[in-house]
């Protein structure tokens, strides 16, 4: 059963004027008009978006549906208001519009080289060349669950090649559209087949998470995660909130390199989380978007997931190859559901197909073929791990450089979180006023929650960013 009401709040549904302000000259004899107005009136809620930093559109008005005969020169879409740009992807839109030569895009999490350029991995180029040279390749529809070989390799990558869960055929893996698509398909599946339709997401989390799960039909709640005082993990709060969650609730966990904070639990803390969750039969749903990208080691970054799988319990894992293989635009990911038995896994897979078919029928072949080519070839795989480590190392070096630069400027505050946090992002702790200042005066683009993408920095641009932070912090306390 879908939960209609929660979906509306998280839509950030701009609140239009009420029905009473509509002109009485509107022909009310048209049932279509009545229906639309009444339905829209039901949908009028003030939204207070949980995570989003986008503001509400002040220009909201709703005009009556014009499909009645009095208005047939007008558009049937007249009642649609303009949606604001996506808070994260909208940063790049704004950046592109800026003519300043010193502008810096630290918004979306896409890796950049030291020269500030996008990077296509060598192994990816090699794999693509192989694919293009292979005259036997065709473009026939993939099965609904995607490329079989790719699915097997992806499961092994995240769960470990010797995973008993895989050997016992207890895992179903379906190719999906990167991380987002995997989360959405998993969410839709749970909304239809799981008994507890509440998902707990960390506070804060990636801005798209609440929307994905709400539209999937789940009710979204939060658990404490980030402690602004320490700029670290609010572990007590996390344990309390998960401890008071209803039995069986779904819990979203960032497998590593938490987005946006970069704050991860330690292995010991993960073990405590695991025990607590299993004791309350909470269902883990891992979002693994940075395997190998966080520490530089594919196995180390998969540890939390593997700990949960090792205890024999069930879980969901959404994987993305956007960052760790640089395949952003190809939309390659996978959803794995680890089940108690092979029989259950098989039935679960059949139901996943029913979610996917009416959404997009079957997934796109190109990105998955690249991944499969690399993962199954020993040399390409090894080369990939080296390229991956180089990216992770460059980011770690940027962290150090930024930290040093702020220290050198005597910027007030403790900036050690920059080198303690892990992954692509740093949660600077800057507030939205400071962020707006940095964009205005220094042409630095970032999300208003103070998150910066370290991947977008270079040795050349670190000083500029450090200057901007320094100015922002000293101008606005």
């Amino acid at each position, binding site marked *: 059963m879908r939960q209609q009401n929660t979906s509306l709040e998280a839509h950030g549904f701009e609140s239009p004027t009420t029905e009473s302000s509509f002109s009485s000259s509107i022909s009310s004899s048209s049932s279509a008009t009545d229906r639309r107005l009444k339905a829209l009136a039901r949908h009028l809620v003030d939204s207070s978006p949980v995570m989003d930093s986008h503001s509400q559109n002040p220009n909201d008005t709703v005009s009556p549906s014009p499909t009645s005969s009095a208005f047939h020169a007008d558009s049937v879409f007249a009642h649609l208001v303009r949606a604001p740009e*996506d808070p994260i992807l909208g940063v790049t839109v704004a950046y592109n519009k800026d003519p300043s030569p010193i502008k810096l895009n630290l918004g979306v999490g896409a890796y950049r080289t030291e020269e500030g350029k996008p990077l296509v991995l060598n192994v990816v180029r090699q794999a693509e060349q192989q694919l293009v040279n292979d005259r036997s390749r065709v473009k*026939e529809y993939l099965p609904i669950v995607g490329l079989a070989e790719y699915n097997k390799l992806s499961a092994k990558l995240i769960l470990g090649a010797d995973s008993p869960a895989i050997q016992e055929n207890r895992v179903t893996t379906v190719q999906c*559209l*990167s991380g987002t698509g995997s989360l959405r398909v998993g969410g839709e599946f749970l909304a239809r087949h799981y008994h507890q339709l509440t998902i707990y997401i960390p506070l804060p989390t990636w801005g*798209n998470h609440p929307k994905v799960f709400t539209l999937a039909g789940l009710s979204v709640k939060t658990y404490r995660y980030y402690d602004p005082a320490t700029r670290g993990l609010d572990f007590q709060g996390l344990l309390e909130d998960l401890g008071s969650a209803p039995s069986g609730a779904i819990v979203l966990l960032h497998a590593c390199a938490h987005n946006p904070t970069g704050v991860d639990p330690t292995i010991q803390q993960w073990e405590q989380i695991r025990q607590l969750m299993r004791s309350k039969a909470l269902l883990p749903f891992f979002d693994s978007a940075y395997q190998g990208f966080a520490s530089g080691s594919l196995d180390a970054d998969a540890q939390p997931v593997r700990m949960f799988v090792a205890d024999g319990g069930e879980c969901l894992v959404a994987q993305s190859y956007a960052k760790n293989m640089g395949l952003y635009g190809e939309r390659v990911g996978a959803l794995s559901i680890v089940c*108690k*038995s092979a029989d259950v896994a098989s039935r679960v897979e059949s139901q996943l197909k*029913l979610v996917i078919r009416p959404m997009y029928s079957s997934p*796109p072949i190109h990105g998955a073929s690249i991944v499969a080519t690399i993962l199954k070839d020993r040399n390409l795989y090894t080369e990939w791990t080296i390229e991956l480590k180089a990216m992770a190392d460059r980011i770690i070096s940027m962290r150090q450089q930024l930290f040093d630069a702020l220290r050198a400027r005597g910027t007030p505050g403790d900036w050690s979180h920059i080198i303690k946090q892990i992954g692509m992002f740093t949660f600077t702790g800057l507030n939205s006023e400071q962020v707006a200042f940095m964009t205005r005066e220094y042409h630095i683009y970032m999300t208003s929650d103070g998150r910066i993408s370290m991947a977008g920095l270079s040795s050349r641009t670190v000083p500029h960013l450090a200057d901007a932070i320094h100015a922002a912090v000293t101008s606005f306390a």
Partner: protein
Amino acid sequence: MTSTSTSTMLSLASAPPTASLSVHENLKGRLKLGGGSLSFNKEKANHFINTKSFSRISMVAAVKVSRFEGVTMAPPDPILGVSEAFKADNDEKKLNLGVGAYRTEELQPYVLNVVKKAENLMVERGENKEYLPIEGLAAFNKVTAELLFGASNPVIKEQRVATVQGLSGTGSLRLAAALIERYFPGAKVLISSPTWGNHKNIFNDARVPWSEYRYYDPKTVGLDFDGMIADIKAAPEGSFVLLHGCAHNPTGIDPTPEQWEKIADVIQEKNHIPFFDVAYQGFASGSLDADAGSVRLFAARGMELLVAQSYSKNLGLYAERIGAINVVCTSADATARVKSQLKRLARPMYSNPPIHGAKIVANVVGDPTLFNEWKAEMEMMAGRIKNVRQKLYDSLTAKDKSGKDWSFILKQIGMFSFTGLNKAQSDNMTNKWHVYMTKDGRISLAGLSLAKCEYLADAIIDSFHNIS
């Protein structure tokens, strides 16, 4: 929770009712079960517990049964499931007329030459793989709208088409359905009877109500035009009417231009909104412009409309999942707003669409040489299907002595033919003749070769006359 509970559970059947054992007692000691005993000594292998998973048992006990135990096995997809069944068949005479994927005369999949050229170009250029904007590749969106409406069409010149790249036809339909659900709550979509099997699933999952309008007339094996008009007229004002732009799937029966005018009349009269599914532009007749005729007719009347496009068939890009949803509005302002809301629906579904197929289309359609080559390849594919229709018709009329009129095969257009065979007869086609098709009697002519026409004719004649 300790390790004994699992074995306690297992042993309940054989233990006497009074044997209520405390968990603690059994940790170290032996458990008496009737006559036998079980040891929990880690080193010994025992019948019930795999010692390797000893540490797992404490957790297993907490959650004994899968959380998904109640999940039932879903039936296979009626269309895609056909190919799976075909693969499993070992008979050498087998014929796959299930899914609508084009095959050569040798019954091999076909990758268009222009596609290979475009992909080689793309690899040579070594472009990056950055995220596309939520609405997709701008170059693709531009050429796809121009292809559909014609570059000089007023709707394009006046910027009144909101185009968003979608995951082929299915994904584009789903985005449109999501838009309808959110902004036209309670509005129904009218779909033809019959229609592509996945249409209902799309609207069901998007929570958009639908009802059917009469379309196929089994008596004439043609269009029930009066029924269609009557049902569209009877629907609540402001309904969405799903129309196949050309090469109706599964029947292959399209309205004539005069009938399209009348359909447009009744839609305007009822303030309905036309919603076109265009999956075969260029593939039906061989001409891109001719196949877009119905859409352009409606647009020329100044009507607002939705159009879902797919490049699966006409560019053979099935697995790349490339298509678009186009919304034509009466003003550029409404267009911009609609586009922004489509983006808001795409973001929580998959964030942004895949790049590869979009680049192929943009390269082919955007380059005059490749574009002309594409048109030639498309004429070739459409031509092969027309030839196969002719040969099948000739075989049927030659072999069938009953005097049944098989001319519908020639009148129908596109990849599919609605044979008029019922489910039992279709089953006979598969079970006796190893001809794979969908249960509604639809055959894909794209999967038929001239060489197999006579065999197929035999199968159809047998199923039609000998099975009821």
